[in-house]
């Protein structure tokens, strides 16, 4: 009985230590980034049916504002997001090379399905296809970092 208690305590301790939101190491980051780009994130060849225009960009910005801003900021570059340095894996700037190297089809796939276990949720059904493709347009033409202010939810 005593042994069992010690064993359970030991396992729980290891488990809890493993749950800490420490930043991932370089090897983990490189491995996961490679796997996402080349294995897990599909839909590489699908083209965006919406062309870039001021209207589709504004549609994308509007759709992005519904809830994406809670983690990514209004500018898609985490401006004003208070937990951005305390979450693991870290929330990437959507202007970063790692994100911009995805094809339009892959970005749509991520928006549809999310990325497990990063915390990125899928939005299929919550936002329409039209809105999701307009977000892809917005992601390709993000405003300058900090130019859009802080999401309203973090201002009071």
């Amino acid at each position, binding site marked *: 009985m005593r042994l069992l208690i010690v064993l359970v305590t030991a396992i729980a301790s290891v488990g809890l230590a493993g749950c800490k939101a420490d930043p991932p190491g370089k090897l983990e980051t490189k491995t996961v980034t490679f796997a996402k780009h080349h294995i897990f994130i599909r839909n590489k060849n699908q083209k965006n049916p919406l062309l870039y225009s001021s209207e589709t960009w504004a549609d994308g910005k509007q759709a992005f504002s*519904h809830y994406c801003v809670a983690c990514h900021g209004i500018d898609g570059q985490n401006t004003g997001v208070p937990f951005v340095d305390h979450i693991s894996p870290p929330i990437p700037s959507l202007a970063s090379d790692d994100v911009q190297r995805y094809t339009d089809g892959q970005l749509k796939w991520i928006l549809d399905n999310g990325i497990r276990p990063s915390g990125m949720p899928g*939005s*299929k*059904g*919550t*936002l*329409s*296809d*039209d*809105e999701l493709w307009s977000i892809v347009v917005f992601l390709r033409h993000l405003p300058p970092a900090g130019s859009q202010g802080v999401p309203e939810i973090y201002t009071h």
Partner: protein
Amino acid sequence: MKTKFMLLALFVGIATASVFSTRVVQAQAAPRRIEVTAKRFAFEPGEITVKKGQPVVLVLKSTDVAHGLRFRELNLDVKIPKGDTVELPFTPDKTGDFVGHCSVFCGSGHGAMTLTLHVMD
């Protein structure tokens, strides 16, 4: 006499033309009204069939929160305030199936809230 006759004929012609043109305008100005209810997360009815060239008025009523209806391909977009009714008049000018979406974010099922418009010849 000849001049008077010609003036009379002209007057009768203009009067006839104006009467007929008024009737044509009146006929075109009587659009088909279709009532549609918008409620989280569906339009009721969810499908509508109309004729190309036939004027239509969609009478859109929200029974809960604010909604919207947008057909990007038809360049139609209207907002429906919470609990309110708005009218969307239009005349479809091309045949096909067009899917309109709720254009005001209304919650978790917002993306699946659609209205399909079948436009027939």
